[in-house]
């Protein structure tokens, strides 16, 4: 544990206090792992992925009983049957702030941060757990984190909350939802496109200097907005500087050094199943090549308008379907959980030393509500994978009625596995001891 490697300023940022400049200068970056001292890289690192789907699940088929191989699963979870021994079924967690606003948007935008959401014209949430990790733990890889999505965000305001809340669970800062990559090909490029064009560095230096000049002349609010730009330029610059310089990875090497699947075709696939599969493949590939250790995959929006002609369910969009408990709703639920199973299966097939890649991963699946009726006083949460041997699967954790049942408590526990130990996160100061 070496959090002192990070400046206080950065640390504060992570907690949702935006301070501007200079950004991450004390940071070590990809290719400089040993001096970062995050971990002597003798064994495979821990990866974390968050999968999300909106509108909850079937009210009667989200359950689990028993332990290990004997665990029995509700129909929604049927696709995970093979992974029961690596599954943590977590019941009873909630996000207190999400109870306060209206429905949908305000139940989603703070799912990974536990932060209060601003309504009306404002946008304010909190830095999400994946991005907090990205800003620290993610620095050791070429791409700090991948933020993927399979449904275009909805450009309107719903019930006095911007719909960007229902389209983003990942937040770079309290005012900056991380833009989603919807194009499989561009996500692939982000991981593997290395060619740095001549002149890029000069251009970025120049515009960075522009932004610094402007910064002095604008209001504090605008400065905060401009800092998004400054930070972005710096990160791109750093990536350019690091391009082609392989760091000294002491001991451990990823099992794959270059992609073993072709670059996906341009555009967004018409078929939603194909879209999800490509994104899942990229997620796995990013982990396997150790190009990134953090990925958020938002399979659809909360208040989603996806249809599922592939399942023969195209007469009703996801959101409206969620208001029923029909067989088709169940079918759609299973389809989403199949994505988790697909990823898990691929990860399990990759051997990293003694363990599989699945053993070195924490796959979290969550939704904004329990069922389609907006009830979020407890949320559906799954954790799959060994977390580097730190997580014992095949268990059911039930926090119903317990005082410490914040989602943020789970996040504190998960960050511990990555050796990012914080005293508090969001609305929690305690860990979930059982995780």
């Amino acid at each position, binding site marked *: 544990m070496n959090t002192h490697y990070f400046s206080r300023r950065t640390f504060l940022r992570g907690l949702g206090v935006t301070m501007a400049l200079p950004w991450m200068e004390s940071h070590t970056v990809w290719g400089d792992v040993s001096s970062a001292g995050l971990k002597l890289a003798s064994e495979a690192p821990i990866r974390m992925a968050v999968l999300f789907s909106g509108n909850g699940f079937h009210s009667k088929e989200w359950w689990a009983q028993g332990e290990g191989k004997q665990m029995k699963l509700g129909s929604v979870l049927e696709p995970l049957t093979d992974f029961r021994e690596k599954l943590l079924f977590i019941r009873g967690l909630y996000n207190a702030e999400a109870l306060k606003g209206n429905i949908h948007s305000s139940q989603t935008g703070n799912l990974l941060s536990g932060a209060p959401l601003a309504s009306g*014209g404002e*946008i304010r949430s909190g830095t999400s757990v994946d991005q907090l990790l990205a800003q620290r733990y993610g620095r050791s890889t070429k791409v700090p984190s991948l933020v993927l999505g399979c449904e275009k965000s909805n450009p309107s305001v719903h*019930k006095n909350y911007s719909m960007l809340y229902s389209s983003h669970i990942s937040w770079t800062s309290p005012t*900056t939802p991380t833009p989603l990559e919807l194009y499989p090909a561009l996500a692939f490029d982000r991981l593997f496109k290395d060619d740095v064009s001549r002149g890029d560095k000069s251009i970025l230096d120049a515009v960075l200097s522009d932004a610094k*000049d*402007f910064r002095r002349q604008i209001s504090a609010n605008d400065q905060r907005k401009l800092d998004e730009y400054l930070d972005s330029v710096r990160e791109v610059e750093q*990536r350019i500087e690091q391009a082609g310089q392989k760091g000294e990875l002491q001991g451990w090497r990823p099992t794959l050094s270059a992609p073993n699947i072709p670059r996906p075709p341009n555009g967004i696939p018409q078929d939603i199943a194909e879209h999800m599969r490509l994104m899942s493949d990229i997620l796995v590939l990013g982990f396997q090549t150790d190009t990134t250790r953090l990925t958020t995959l938002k399979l659809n929006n909360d208040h989603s308008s996806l249809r599922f002609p592939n399942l023969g369910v195209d*007469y009703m969009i996801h959101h409206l379907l969620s208001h*029923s408990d029909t067989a088709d709703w169940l079918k759609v639920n299973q389809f989403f959980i199949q994505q988790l199973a697909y990823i898990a299966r691929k990860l399990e097939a990759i051997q990293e030393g003694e363990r599989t890649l699945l053993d070195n991963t924490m796959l979290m699946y969550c939704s904004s509500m329990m069922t389609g009726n907006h009830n979020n006083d407890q949320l559906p949460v799954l954790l799959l994978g060994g977390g580097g041997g730190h997580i014992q699967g095949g268990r059911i954790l039930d926090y119903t009625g317990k005082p410490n049942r914040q989602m943020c408590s789970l996040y504190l526990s998960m960050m511990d596995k990555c050796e990012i130990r914080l005293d508090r996160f969001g609305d929690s100061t305690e860990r979930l001891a059982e995780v």
Partner: protein
Amino acid sequence: MNSNWPRTFSALALVGITTCSIHGAAARSLATQFTEEIQPVLKQFCFECHNPEKHKGDLDLTRFASLEAMLKEPTVWEGVIEQLHLGEMPPKDEPQPSAVERGRLFEGVSAALDEAARAHAGDPGAVVLRRLNNAEYTYTIRDLTGVNSLEPAREFPSDSAAGEGFMNTGNALVMSPALLTKYLDAGKEIASHAVLLPEGLRFSAHNSERDWTDDSLAQIREFYRKFVVDGGDAAANQGGRLPLERYLGATLTERTALSNGTKSTAVLARELGLNARYLATLWEVLNPQKTQPASLLLDELRLRWQQARPEDAPALAATVAQWQQALWKFNSIGHIRRHLGGTDGPLAWMEPVSPVTTKWDVRLKLNPPTNSNEVVVYLAAGDAGDGSAQDYVVWQQPQLVVPGRPNLLLRDVRTFARELAVRREQIFASTSRSLDAAAEASTPSASWDLAALARRHEVDPEILGAWLDYLGIGSTAQPQLDYFTGRVEKSGEYDFIRGWGSPETPLLIANSTAQAVRVPGNMKPHAVAVHPSSTLNACIGWRSPISGPVRVEATVTHAHPECGNGVTWTLELRRGALRQRLAAGVSQGGSPVSVPPVESLAVQPGDLVSLIIGPRDGNHSCDLTDVELRLKGAQEWNLNAEVSPDILAGNPHADGQGNPGVWHFYTEPVSGATGTLIPAGSLLAHWQSTSDSAEKTRFAAEVQSLLTTGVTASTPAADAQLHRQLAALGGPLFAGARNRLGNGVQSKTGSAPGPEWGLDPQLFGRSPGGTAADPADLLVSAPSLVEIRLPADLVAGCEFVTTGVLDPARGVEGSVQLLAQTTRPNLSQLQPGIPVLTAAESTAQHRVETAFEDFRQLFPAALCYTKIVPVDEAVTLTLYYREDQHLQRLFLDPAEIAQLNRLWDELFFLSREPVLLQSAFEQIYEYATQDRPDMVKSFGPMREPIQRRATAFRQREIEAEPSQLSAALRFAERAFRRPLTPAESQELRALYGQLRTEELPHTEALRLTLARVLVAPAFLYRIEQPAPGPKATPVNDWELATRLSYFLWSSTPDEELLQLAESSRLRDPDVLAGQARRMLQDSRVRRLAEEFGCAWLHIHDFATLDEKSERHFPTFAGLRESMYEESIRSFTDFFQNNRPVPSLLEADYTFLNGALAEHYGIPGITGTDWRRVDGVKAYGRGGILGQATTLAKQSGASRTSPILRGNWLCETLLGEKLPRPPKGVPVLPELPPQGLTERQLTEQHSGSPKCAGCHVRIDPYGFSLEAYDAIGRRRSIDAAGLPIDPRAKLADGTEFAGLDGLRDYLLTTRRDAFLHQFYRKLLGYSLGRGVQLSDKPLIQEIQQKLAGRDQRIADAIELIVRSPQFREVRGRDFVTSN
């Protein structure tokens, strides 16, 4: 609650800047109200839950101890009002305040809030720094580059909305490393569309040099096309013609008006879309103001024009066109070299031709018609349209010429014909005897003497001699052959393929080796091949050295079968003048044709057996023909074996036995081969073939009878032909007589029966005045027409030859046109296409030349070379050929010429023509001079000038760099929407310089500089620099221009706005308002329609809506673009035409194409064109409620949803706030249960007490729209076939039915709510933030001020742009607390 107001107000209080009116009298009464009316009610009904301990809903109301405290956090109190209004608070199961208490609380809080709003009215609010959203970025790029096909944001993450629900709110517009990378890539992509020009840069839809060159070419062609017509044959470099008919037509149609000055040529030109300059010039020429010097052609044109009516314009134009053809010629571009420094070749594409000559040569082929015995030749002399002074013409020695005969002077024709006619009688009378004599002479072993034979048979020896020659008896007349004389030393680069003939064609070649090669036709080993030309056969003759029978075999093989149309072949026997065809046919396609062997052909020494190869149908391409010829008699002959080893040994060539002169290689015309063939089947043919002497005698008698009696209707065709042959004065029997008579014949025999031929010899040799001249010349004075009748049988095949000149004695200053032809000519006026004859160096010649030049100047055959890229050559050095001086001279003003020059310069610059030309030259030089050493002379001189040009061009490219960099800086200025600071200019130049030092070439460095501009914060963000301190101040003019243009156009300010900003005038609110009105008229306001109008209605991007079941609505995907277009067009119309805001609901028109009209069931509208359609209310349309977009968007994937529609109506159109849905909402069944309509299903759901509270407010609106299905079609029954019930009963008891009822309700009862909501949204959009309490007075002001003015949209927008909110920005140090 974390919204703006609490922070704002505490901030105001802290810095103490407010001159708060709350301390006035009203405030005191409000303060009293607070303590006496508000607080007690709160205490009694609210504090129970909203206290510091319970803090229900994060709300503690106990802390508001005073009015001041309350006014610090008005948002909290807005929430309180809202809860009261919705009836949400206090909760139903808690004690409720009385109506009076509730009203008191409501009024008290409202009054306080109103006071707060007034106090801070006009606050610009917190507008967060705005990044250009994807739409704004795209539009901005398009407007900056002028390229509307660019889609730079296509793969950007989609934007989000905030504030009032629009995508132009800074909070929701985020940046990330991934997005920044996309901006950088997009910037580079856009920069790749920059076209670097000599003086700067522009942008193109394309990003390759090839496309830019094509663009440039297209621009020049487009320029030309405005003036010219492309007529004629494209391949022949036609085009660029003057559309003269239209101009002449205009002068004729408007002659009166133009003459009396009621209309000017300029006005007429504008009316008709003609070129004013040329029309004026033409008018001036046709109506000269002062007397013009005589100008032959123009004078005549004027005359004709004066008499012409409007419908004569085409004929007039056609005459001009004929003269254009006569006065100009066109050259191949490939032959023009002088513009590239060459010293030979034509000067230009279009060159003047002067049809002026000093002598007129006539060679007139006479082909008599078969049905007439005469040919008439006319010799015409016209006065060339300028009077007949000195028009004395000499037709020099007119005569008849035919190969093989002495020439016959026209002067002698009359006598000559008369003599021959007499002679014919003598010949015919002695036919029988002559033939008998011939029979005797043809007996084998006969030895005879002509004179004795004639005597014995009592025939004139001359006549008998002619018969014997004709019949091929005796060897006196060997046929004359036209031998190949040229030696072909190698063919197809093979020196073993040699032969005779022309290097082109015809020729004969032989392969001396056993090697098969292609030349490019097939040359087999030891082959002999021939190649005819288009007019000449290639012939191989075997001249018999023996007497006796032979067998003849021949094979003909088309040796170049891949192309061409094959050849004809003929095998023939020639004896004297006699020719006998043995066989004939066609060979094509590579298969050998074996000529049927000719058995036992009796030959005599000197007989010629020939194989003749001719072009088929005059087409001699690819006609190389392999030939074999073998003869077998006492000896054997084989052409191939005997001549192929040494073909060049001689022509004629010896045979294998050493007989000299056996093989003959020659040519003959394809048509009109010399020699005579006796008609097969005729009496004479029978005479010839029989060996029985009695029969011979009988046939001889019959031939005589035929000749003397003449042809009757019953005469067989062969005999009729025989008669024609033998009776012809030009025929074989008269050869002797013709030779004997010759020229200068004097009549000995007196007049003969029949017509008088030719002319009176007395007419020759003297001028009309009587002066002596060459005795064979015919002298006339123009105008003159001499008609000459000639005997057809004498002149068939002859040429009539003469030369016309002006009489050197008396015609020196004459000018005439001459014609000699066999039809009656009309030379009564000057004819195009016929040269004018003058004496050399004469004044007349100068006058005619000048007249032609006058005409050429006004009527060039082409105005310009519109092809530009030459198409007439297989190989041409010229890449782009410019010739447009006539267009410039006649049509263009200096500005247009400058524009054209600039376009050409751009084309040369972009294509790097001088550099390309240099390399093209080197290749062509190499290629051309290798095969054609003579071309060195032509190409050599060009090398140095071409090199010099290329060097100069490279230098020019370097010199253009600074101006291109300056252009990039100007682009930056446009992109940043304001002038660059000196530091910015310097930095941009420095970046460019640095990139150059990184060894990037100029173009790349410049493009990267452009990319840097496009990724700069000053471009991507709408940066505004507030004044220091806390006070709001007006934004500067540039920022204001940007605010206005992004509000109305979602894009960068245009030139006019920038100029107003530059001159600091935009800050004037009247100027600003005027600009807003101007901009609303512009087509770019379509973007406002989409970004504001459609976004407000939640149908933004409807064209990609993917929420409908394909199974239920297969037509939807094909219609959604049209549906969206209707909404966009409706809003665009609304803004552009300053419509009243209520028209959004009540318009009785909409915009439709055929497909959408069909969807709506509106008849009579077809096709893909969009049009405004009126009277649509009758079909249940008109206004936003009747649009498929809103109806479909607020429906499910397969069925309607009254709840969605009702909710949308409440929230979006009326601005009502609805409480959060309760927990534990019952679950809806998957499909409507049998027998329930969608309405009943909704009613069932909403009937639950948990839900009813809200749904009674929402659902009725939705029910009223139930007569529209889930994709907006009208319906009377639902999907299950149950009848629709569109009646609605609102919570307050109001009842109405259907869309009409709903619309009326909204326009009357809810009019204010609708207007308020619309203005609120419009204001929020215009400011890019959520509307706040302090905006309330402005919204009220708009609504009230426009009440008497129809609520017109432009008025509302004017009030907005004049407001302080819109024009000001909060001070930099306006402190907000967190």
